[in-house]
């Protein structure tokens, strides 16, 4: 009897081993590491992508928050995981930019493989509707006449700060930069009159634009936004400034090509689902899909440009 049970269990074990060995990728949960805290816009995006990609991979995608270290904790966790495609990371331009600043000595841009991009968004320069300045020209003129302009936005050395620095260099004026903790804080300070002009993500101020409280003077993209047709690009205004925030996915360098292709295929199918498109429209985001090659090229160019602009901070 004991022998019979033993043989049977061995047989079952063998069966299980065989089926798992034969099964194609993915055979277990895929973890998406996210450096932002639960509930933040980047986290919500990752969770939405996970939700809509799941049916195409037939395995659950689990978003795991690894906040801290200015994004470094997530990068470290990603690099510590094996390159089997079961651990990927969500990434933004701002996080990669940290590798040009405080994380410069910890990580290298080339340690990562770029999977695909999902969102692409320019930055906006905004004032209150009843501000004395109704165009970038007005702002520059006021600064030239010696006015101390309080220019607020998220962080020091962030893309938004670099945009303001670049503008002040090209227009040959000076601003007082007020670094805030995040987008919401920047808007609060603008609405309260503690900052006179802010750099922000357009989606953060859209509802105030709709309510007639805030006016966007310019955006930093290549072309105008469909939902903000009246806001010119900085390029149109004669300032050669193009800076964008991308949000996509990366893996540790060395992920097998066929697994990478499978992941990219599943994500690209997921983000074409109507439910995901609705989410994008609700959060005022335009489709920014890029395949691995295009995404790498874009991210690399952006990364190098940020590195150059960092020199302006000296």
């Amino acid at each position, binding site marked *: 009897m004991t022998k019979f049970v033993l043989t049977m269990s061995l047989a079952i074990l063998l069966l299980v081993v065989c089926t798992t060995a034969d099964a194609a990728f993915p055979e277990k949960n895929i973890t998406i590491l996210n450096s932002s805290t639960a*509930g933040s816009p980047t986290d919500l995006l990752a*969770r939405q992508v996970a939700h809509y990609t799941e049916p195409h991979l037939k395995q659950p995608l689990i978003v795991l928050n690894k*906040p801290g*270290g200015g994004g470094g904790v997530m990068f470290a966790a990603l690099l510590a995981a094996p390159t089997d495609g079961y651990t990927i990371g969500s990434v933004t331009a701002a996080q990669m930019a940290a590798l040009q600043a405080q*994380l410069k000595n910890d990580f290298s841009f080339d340690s990562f493989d770029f999977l695909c991009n999902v969102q692409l968004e320019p930055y906006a320069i905004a004032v209150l509707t009843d501000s004395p300045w109704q165009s970038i020209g007005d702002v520059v003129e006021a600064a030239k006449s010696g006015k101390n302009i309080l220019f607020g936005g998220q962080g020091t*050395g962030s893309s938004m700060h670099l945009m303001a620095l670049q503008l002040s260099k090209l227009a040959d004026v000076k601003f*007082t930069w007020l670094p805030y903790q995040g987008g919401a804080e920047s808007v*609060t300070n603008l609405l309260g009159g503690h900052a006179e002009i802010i750099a922000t993500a357009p989606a953060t101020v859209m*509802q105030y634009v709709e309510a007639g409280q805030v006016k966007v003077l310019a955006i930093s993209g290549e072309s105008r936004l469909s939902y903000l047709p009246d806001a010119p690009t900085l390029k149109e205004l004669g300032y050669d400034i193009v800076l964008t925030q991308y949000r996509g996915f990366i893996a540790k360098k060395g992920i097998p090509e066929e697994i990478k292709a499978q992941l990219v295929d599943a994500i690209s199918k997921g983000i074409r689902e109507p439910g995901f498109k609705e989410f994008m429209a609700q959060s005022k985001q335009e489709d920014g899909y890029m395949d691995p090659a295009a995404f790498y090229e874009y991210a690399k160019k952006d990364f190098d440009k940020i590195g150059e602009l960092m020199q302006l901070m000296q």
Partner: protein
Amino acid sequence: MLENLVSGFGYAFQQHSLAALCAGTLIGYFIGAMPGLNPTLGISLLIPFTFGMKPIPAMILLSSLYMACEYGGAITAILINTPGTSAAAATALDGYPLTLQGKAGKALGISIISSGLGSFFSTLLLIAFAIPLARFALSFGGPEYFALALFGLSIVSSLASDSLIKGWSAAIMGLLFSCVGMDTINGVGRYTPHLYLLEGLPFIAVMIGLFAISEVFVLLEGRSGKGENFTGRVDALPTGAEMKSCGITVVRGTLIGFIVGIIPAAGANIASWVSYNDAKRRSRSPELFGNGALEGIAASESANNSAVSGALVPLLTLGIPGSSAAAVLIGALTIQGLQPGPLLFTRNPEIPYSIFAAFLLSAPLMTVFGLTCSKFFARVSSVPDEILAFCIFGVCVLGTYAIGNSMFHVWVSLGFGVLGYFMRKFGFPTAPMVLAIVLGPMAETNLRLALLMGGGNAGIFFSRPISLVIILVSLASFLSPIFKNIVHKKLSSREGQ
């Protein structure tokens, strides 16, 4: 407005909404009681479940969870000196001494009743004043936040009335700890040998270390301080007279919590400390504070629940989060296709009003549930010290791991546990250090922002009315315990002669 509120109740009484309300309240209660799990995390954990729900039940679920977390945080603060949410830190100061005196039931009862009253009356304030007070939330810029942080720090004087020098030493050490991390103005790291430290010492882990882990060591040493009057009847609830004595404190706590809650980035944390300080200063027996004053619990708990309603003022009227949990609520609203902000009350009045109705319904629900359970919870205090110590330790390690899914937070809390143990051994209070670590970054960043705004001129603090008033109040709050001490010493030395 009234018809909107009536229809809000109509929505809240629908079966899905009621189910969401009960689920949110119960889950929130336990998330709140679990150290390390805070309302922000609780809301974000539940967001995926709201994908398939209609907007109203979804928002009722999340907002009642938020409110209930602030009830739950007090349970572990009182029973095992481990604040379940960071806003319950001030509750532990008096709650735990009461548990040691065998009055856990009374402490829990007062905390639940004050929480219930705080959340009910602050909801009424929210309904009446949300729109008119929206502008007030915007009037806080760099100088005002600096003044507010200064006011918070001035509380140290009254927290440490036994020995001002020891209290302020602990606070100053806390301020030094808060320097660790990225300097947000210049964008450079300070004291950051490892990248985990770039965002500073994780506050919740530090707090759990100083309060709870240090308590584990004290318990293991076999001197828990359980008094001789520790009787078997730990589950006695507060008497009518005891509740009455806290009445006025609850009213003031509710008002303070609501006002501090409205100010974005201030929130329940600061509200409970400010209210605690206020209650102590006004109390007829301030010497009881820190040794088991029911009023202290009432002050802290009414304020931290009231701050939740306060935080909804800028959230619903302006789309500005008044706390990190409120920021996650904004995300949840966005997923439902709703924009919290200037247009919400006109476009979707059913959302704010059904949240108001849910808050009004959840207050009595929570109170009844809490009072029923507190009799059982109170028995925790009769568990032998050695067993309790290991349970607290386990819960703390689990909770701190959950903050960032990493061992780093666990090590930080253990380190601060050792520090806290030695501080207590040598008579240094740990509460001022916790307070300083909360307020340090706020004070520093806003001091520098304000000076940037003023072009380097400190006049900006005195030329803006709100900041001037708060600075004067903090000066009074800083100096009054010192004067009181001196006068008291003179009087007693005269009596001695």
